[in-house]
Every structure is written in C-alpha cells, then in structure tokens.
C-alpha cells in the first residue's frame, strides 16, 4: 500500500476518534444539564480550612533580623 494511502487511512481514524470524543462530550454535557434540572439539590454547605492557631510567641525577637 502506498504511503499516501496509509497516511490518509490514519488521518481518517484520527478524525473518527476526534468526532467520537466530541460527540461523547456533547451528549454527556447535555445529560448532566438535564439531570441538574430534574434533580435539583440544595447546594451543600462548604467549610473552608480554618486559620491555623498562631505559633507560640517567639521569645527571641532578634531571630532572623540580624541585618
């Protein structure tokens, strides 16, 4: 088989895979939206990480400030 035909075949396979993925993401996206509309759930409360308690007060104030 000439190289040109092999190249065209590979290109066709790449296009098929790309279109397939595009189709998959379109369908999945639509399904997610429909599910979201039909099964509306109240947003779950979210708790951010609390501030860490301040480290023990440094007794040596001159530490690291020598210059």
């Amino acid at each position, binding site marked *: 088989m000439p190289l040109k035909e092999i190249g065209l075949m590979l290109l066709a396979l790449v296009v098929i895979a790309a279109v397939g993925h595009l189709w998959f993401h379109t369908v999945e996206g639509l399904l997610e939206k429909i599910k979201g509309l039909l099964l509306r759930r109240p947003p779950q409360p979210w708790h951010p990480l*609390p501030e860490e308690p301040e480290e023990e007060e440094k007794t040596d104030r001159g530490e690291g400030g020598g210059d």
Partner: protein
Amino acid sequence: MGFFGKLFKGPEIDQAKSDANAKKMRLLFNQVVEDGDSYRLIFGYTEDVSRFNYGFVHGSKTKIGNLIVGWNEDRQTIVAVPTVPDLSGCGEPTYYRRGEILKAYRNKYPTDAFVIYPDKRGYIAINAYDWLEDEKLYVYVSQEAELAAFTDFFMHRFATK
C-alpha cells in the same frame, strides 16, 4: 546510595508535606464533627466509574471523591467528611453508626474497598491506601499505621457478619 540505587528505589514520601496535610485533615474534621478529637482519622476516597460506548469511541470516566474518614472505636461509628485534594475546605459529615447501618463489609473485587450500606437505597465504598502519590487527585498523606488500625477496627468491630 548510588545513582542506580536511587533510580530503582521508587518515589519517596515527603514526610513534612504528609504531616502538614494530616494536621489540616484534623482541623477540617474537628471543625464539622462534634468531639472530633475522639475520632482517629485516615484519608479515603470514592470512585464513580461510568462507562460509555459511542460507536467508535468507548471507554470509561472516573470521578474521584476525597474523604476524611474518622472512626471512634467505643461508639462503633465511622464518619465520612467530603474534601478536596488540597484540603482547602470540607463538606458536611455523614455518620455511619454500626447499630443503624444495614450492612458493612470489606470488598476485594473489583477493588479493595470498605463498603457500608446505610440502608437499602445506597452504599458508600471507601478506598484507602498507605499513600497515594498523585496529589492532584488525592490527599497527599502517609498513613500506614492508621490504615492498619482502621482495617482492624472495620473488620473486627464494625463489619456485619
């Protein structure tokens, strides 16, 4: 250790990072669970695998849900708190009390998971490992001893016959 020794040793745990994350897990857990300090903690995760087949294109899509899992041996209770890999926050806790659940067992196939059925309608399958390197997907924490303790608790004091 020589170059090849290091090369074949595999990934090493960053203990400082692991300790910092363990601390964050504790802060988050204690924030949402009453008397949080009475629970021991591990990191676990759930997997939601959906398979698809659109003609030429088929495969699977996996959604990972990170959890801070706490257990209290005296109360025979497991608490699951949803979180994110960077531990920037957490959701509401879900309590699984042994006296209230339908059944619980350790699954070996297709994945090694701790399965709890709170009722007939649904279940939760908690996966847990000593350490998972991928910090984009999982909480980076080394937990060999804690996981062994949780496994012992689950198998001997929580799982239903």
